[in-house]
């Protein structure tokens, strides 16, 4: 009984769903897929159409710019046009070449400017170093001059000293001569003194002898004492 019931409600449900799918899905499925496909096709065709019309316009524009040689076939004109076209082409090439060269030149100018600036910098550096050298040079020159004057002064001084030295030498020599002469005279003097002394001694001896003789012969009144003292005195002097 339960089984039957179950099959009943299940059957009822599945029938309804199948019915639903048939009514709502299957009837429409094909037609809508078809529609979608047509839609895509139409879109693709539309975009293709657009592209084609653009191409068409382009072609039209191209042909419009070219001379349409009418039925007469003006070959001379077309030839001339071709010639001119070629000329234009050549000119264009030249123009591009020139443009390129211009660009290169501009680049070169820029490069050279950069170099120039570098050089200028180096130059300025050199100039400053030169200035420094110059100033140091002048300083050194001044020093040299100073030293030179110093030297001259020294030279003068030495000259003077030398002169003086010479003068003194001369004086010295003179004096030495004198000294020598004096020594000679001194010697002579001594000899003379010695001779004088000896003479004197001889005188004294003689006088003593004379005295003695006198005393012996002369009166005997005079005290002996006084006579001896006197005699002594004479001897000593």
């Amino acid at each position, binding site marked *: 009984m339960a089984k039957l019931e179950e099959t*009943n409600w299940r059957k009822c449900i*599945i029938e309804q*769903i199948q019915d639903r799918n048939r009514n709502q899905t299957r009837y429409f499925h094909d037609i*809508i897929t078809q529609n979608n496909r047509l839609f895509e096709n139409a879109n693709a065709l539309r975009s293709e159409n657009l592209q084609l019309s653009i191409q068409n316009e382009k072609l039209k524009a191209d042909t419009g710019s070219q001379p349409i040689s009418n039925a007469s076939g003006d070959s001379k004109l077309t030839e001339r046009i071709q010639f001119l076209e070629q000329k234009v082409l050549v000119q264009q090439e030249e123009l591009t070449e020139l443009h390129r060269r211009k660009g290169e030149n501009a680049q070169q100018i820029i490069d050279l400017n950069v170099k120039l600036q570098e050089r200028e910098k180096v130059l300025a550096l050199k100039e400053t170093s030169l200035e420094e050298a110059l100033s140091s040079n002048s300083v050194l020159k001044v020093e040299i001059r100073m030293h030179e004057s110093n030297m001259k002064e020294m030279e003068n001084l030495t000259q003077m000293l030398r002169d003086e030295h010479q003068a003194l030498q001369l004086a010295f020599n003179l004096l030495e001569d004198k000294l020598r002469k004096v020594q000679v005279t001194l010697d002579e003097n001594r000899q003379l003194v010695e001779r004088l002394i000896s003479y004197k001694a001889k005188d004294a001896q003689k006088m003593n002898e004379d005295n003695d003789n006198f005393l012996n012969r002369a009166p005997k009144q005079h005290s002996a004492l006084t006579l001896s003292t006197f005699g002594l005195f004479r001897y000593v002097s």
Partner: protein
Amino acid sequence: MANDREILREIWEGKIPVRFTLYPDEVYELQQPDEFYLMVPRLSYFPLVIDKVKKHFIRYVSNDKNDQEMWLEYDGQPVKWHFPIGLLFDLLVGTGPDLGLPWHIVVHFEKFPETQIFRLNSKDLVEAHFMACLKEADVLKHRGQIVSSMQKKDHNQLWSGLQNDKFDQFWAVNRKLMEVSGEVDHFKYIPFRIYDIEGFYKQKLVKPVSDEGQRKTLNDLLMEMYPKRATSVKVLTHGMFPPLNTPLQWMSEHLSYPDNFLHLCLV
């Protein structure tokens, strides 16, 4: 165990045809833009599927506005795009023999209705919202044990499976979230949200079995939620009305959206 692959597969494959048009006042070009048709998966989210739509329409709006955010409108109301698309469709269009398919959505680039919908301008934000719902559901079902034991790689696989509409990739991981753990053969609570017609929803803790151990059905859920008018309401989900005697456990395993919630619309 979520083992009824036939149902899961059918649910996964549910798609809605949508017709996008640009709001006429915002057209800047002389030419009116063509309408854009798209099949969108019911289980996915709008921010994931509208890249192409944006690319298509952005050419037609003025340049100074095209960096503004795009938003969607249906029937004069901004579309709450943080809900799954299938839920939005059930809520806004409903069901019946004449749904007016394809679903007509108007695209806007100006006057973003900040007070009514979230800005989901990047897929990361949608992913964050999705993962948040997933985790909430797992907390209700297994106290959050499964989702927190998963690796970042598994989370990424879930998300990219949903994003790229890969059923096997998604269910390889989602299967673990739908398993019941231990001896009991049911979830702790059923993660579900019941939406009323204005788009507000209610949540409540509802167990998949009654106190006596009997399996609860959708009817029991409605009795718990709306005791007074349970007999007069019907529930719409995935574009169909599940029978009232469908067991809740089975519903949660098979009819949940990828965020693991049952999103039920009250009719």
